[in-house]
């Protein structure tokens, strides 16, 4: 029996266990949508394609599996690029499906034609332009495999509209055979021995955990290893929340905007165990300095990351989870002295209450205190991201953000995806008034699908981080950072039927947060923030 390639694509999604997809249709992807509508896969219609990509990213990060977003040819696909690049930088597994103009028109610059496989080449792990409908089952199978294994990332499948309507016999392949793609998961035994020996001779060993710990599903293994050995842990922003916030040996987040304790630990360690961290410039500004002080052990699934940004003494390629489990087994003799005691003691934000404006650090502190202990906080980009990251202390919570690309407009769509992936967890997006206005069309998606995400908008009427940079580095020449003409965000939310509230006094924070969290519906909380509010 034959079915159309579009029906085959949908069957493939079902075979992969996909329950929810995100997208926005157009003519070139209509055959697929027609087939999709006849299944029980839930389609979330976004209001701009980029947000379908970010929502899929949030969904993938919570389900730990590749998530799917869909757009049409030309502008639809092009709108997805920012989200694809954002996912690529943070190694988030996506399967991105785009419609394409009919095969015989390819290359003729017809209406809504864009070379999306070519445009996305630098931002995808792999891509396919499907020329032969019969290849669909194999390509879909490969795409999910490539996206979700090794160093995860987005895979693009571009399907011309005529290909979608061709009839093919359908069988979903049971296995993939890609001769050039065999990610190495198991750490080299000789290197593992060297790691154990280096750690056992260390006086001040330290673990620096990055986003790769989540990708490898290695959070529990990391905690077990740290507990057994007593080695303290710092995280990058992408690694934030991979270890419980209240774990005594969690020294916090490193980097340009990190906790002083964590950065001091990085500079004091004599053996540094980097796990799934690519030594990005915002996390580790001077890798050369670190190498001088410490022996560097670098664990990563991607061999290309080892030696790229930092010289490594002991490279170890493989799955962080398997390697940590292995290390844990062999770590009997490792008992790091608690050298980090003098580094600890995260300071709670104190200081008098202000009125007229809200202090964002107090908002984040209150939020983390009032939220359920496994709540998900999705930070946007800008000052709000740093306030959120530095203040994050939800004990078993999850912190999501666009770490590598720093894409404004990430938080709300990603929160939508996260909430759909984990309906039982509270999901709170924190953004600024600048980033909010890059994604506020998604209030309609939230409303029409009744997705109870919470949104906090830190409104300082500025592109605050740029404003601060101009103050410190450009002689106070504040330019193009004034968000005059902001709408009334409370009324805006109300117009979408989303409950909302504005607060302007520190004294109102606690009650407002509690109201927001206890509301069964989506909720928007606007905080009036001083334009002069610093990041740190």
């Amino acid at each position, binding site marked *: 029996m034959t079915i159309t390639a579009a029906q085959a694509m949908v069957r493939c999604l079902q075979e992969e266990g996909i329950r929810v997809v995100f997208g926005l249709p157009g003519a070139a992807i209509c055959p697929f949508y027609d087939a999709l509508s006849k299944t029980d896969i839930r389609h979330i219609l976004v209001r701009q394609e980029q947000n379908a990509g970010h929502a899929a990213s949030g969904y993938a990060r919570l389900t730990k599996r590749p998530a799917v977003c869909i757009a049409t040819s030309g502008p639809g696909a092009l709108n997805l690029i920012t989200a694809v690049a954002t996912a690529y930088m943070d190694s988030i597994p996506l399967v991105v499906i785009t419609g394409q103009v009919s095969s015989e028109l390819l290359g003729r610059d017809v209406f809504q034609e864009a070379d999306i496989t*070519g445009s996305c*080449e*630098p931002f995808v792990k*792999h891509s396919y*332009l499907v020329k032969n409908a019969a290849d669909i089952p194999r390509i879909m199978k490969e795409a999910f495999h*490539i996206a979700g294994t090794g160093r995860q990332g987005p895979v693009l499948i571009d399907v011309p509209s005529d290909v979608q309507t061709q009839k093919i016999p359908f069988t979903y392949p049971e296995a993939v055979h*890609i001769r*050039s793609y065999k990610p190495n998961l198991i750490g080299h035994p000789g290197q593992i021995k060297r790691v154990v020996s280096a750690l056992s001779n260390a006086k001040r060993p330290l673990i620096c955990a990055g986003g790769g710990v989540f990708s490898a599903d290695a959070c529990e293994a990391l905690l077990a290893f740290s507990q057994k050995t007593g080695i303290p842990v710092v995280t990058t922003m992408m690694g934030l929340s991979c270890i419980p916030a209240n774990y005594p040996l969690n020294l916090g987040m490193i980097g340009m905007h990190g906790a002083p304790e964590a950065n001091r630990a990085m500079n004091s360690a004599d053996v540094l165990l980097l796990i799934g961290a690519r030594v990005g410039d915002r996390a580790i500004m001077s890798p050369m300095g670190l190498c001088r002080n410490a022996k560097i052990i670098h664990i990563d699934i991607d*061999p*290309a990351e080892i030696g790229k940004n930092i010289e490594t003494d002991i490279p170890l390629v493989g799955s962080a989870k398997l390697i940590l489990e292995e290390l844990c087994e062999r770590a009997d003799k490792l008992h790091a002295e608690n050298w980090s005691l003098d580094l600890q003691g995260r300071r709670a934000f104190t200081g008098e209450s202000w009125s007229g404006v809200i202090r964002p650090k107090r908002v984040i502190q209150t939020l983390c205190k009032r939220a359920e202990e496994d709540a998900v906080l999705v930070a946007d980009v800008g000052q709000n991201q740093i306030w959120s990251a530095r203040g994050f202390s939800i004990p078993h919570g999850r912190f999501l953000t666009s770490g590598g690309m720093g894409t404004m407009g990430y938080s709300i769509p990603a929160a939508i995806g996260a909430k759909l992936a984990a309906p039982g967890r509270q999901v709170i997006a924190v953004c600024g008034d600048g980033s909010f206005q890059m994604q506020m069309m998604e209030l309609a998606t939230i409303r029409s699908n009744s997705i109870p995400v919470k949104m906090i908008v830190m409104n300082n009427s500025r592109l605050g981080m740029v404003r601060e940079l101009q103050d410190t580095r450009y002689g106070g020449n504040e330019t193009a950072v004034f968000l005059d003409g902001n709408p009334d965000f409370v009324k805006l939310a109300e117009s979408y039927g989303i409950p909302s509230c504005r607060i302007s006094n520190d004294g109102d924070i606690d009650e407002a947060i509690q109201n927001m969290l206890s509301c069964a519906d989506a909720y928007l909380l606007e905080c009036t923030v001083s334009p002069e509010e610093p990041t740190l």
Partner: protein
Amino acid sequence: MKYTISILVENHAGVLSRISGLFARRGFNIDSLAVGITNDPAVSRMTIVVDGNEYIVEQVEKQLNKLIDVIRLRRLEEGEKVSRELVLIKVECTPKTRSDIIDVVRVMDAKVSDLSKTTLTAELSAQSEKIELFCELLEPYHILEIARTGTIALDKGNATLNA
């Protein structure tokens, strides 16, 4: 320093642009790139000569290895490889200069591949250094056009790179 990398890739549309795009966006300098099909029609071999240092060439290899279309690659070490490049050079050639030019062609073990009233086209297959010298020797006769294939290379002896 120059490094020669031999790469076996899937013989698909778009592979060349993936590889050249990778070089461009990561700022790696390609001296030459030559592609051709192998005895397995599904596989092409690329020979890329990279200009850089040890760090760069290691990154090149690792990043190339991440491309799904790259089946296998190997750095071919100096002294352990056979490498050749083919050049076609068209020079101005009059009855007066013809015998001098043909002398150069003979001495360099090149061949005359085309002759006209006013031009001579010579071909030479050799290592890049010899090709440079050949071009230099023909320079005084006024070179009209040059086409070079870029270096191709294989390991010496029984070492092979197979898909």
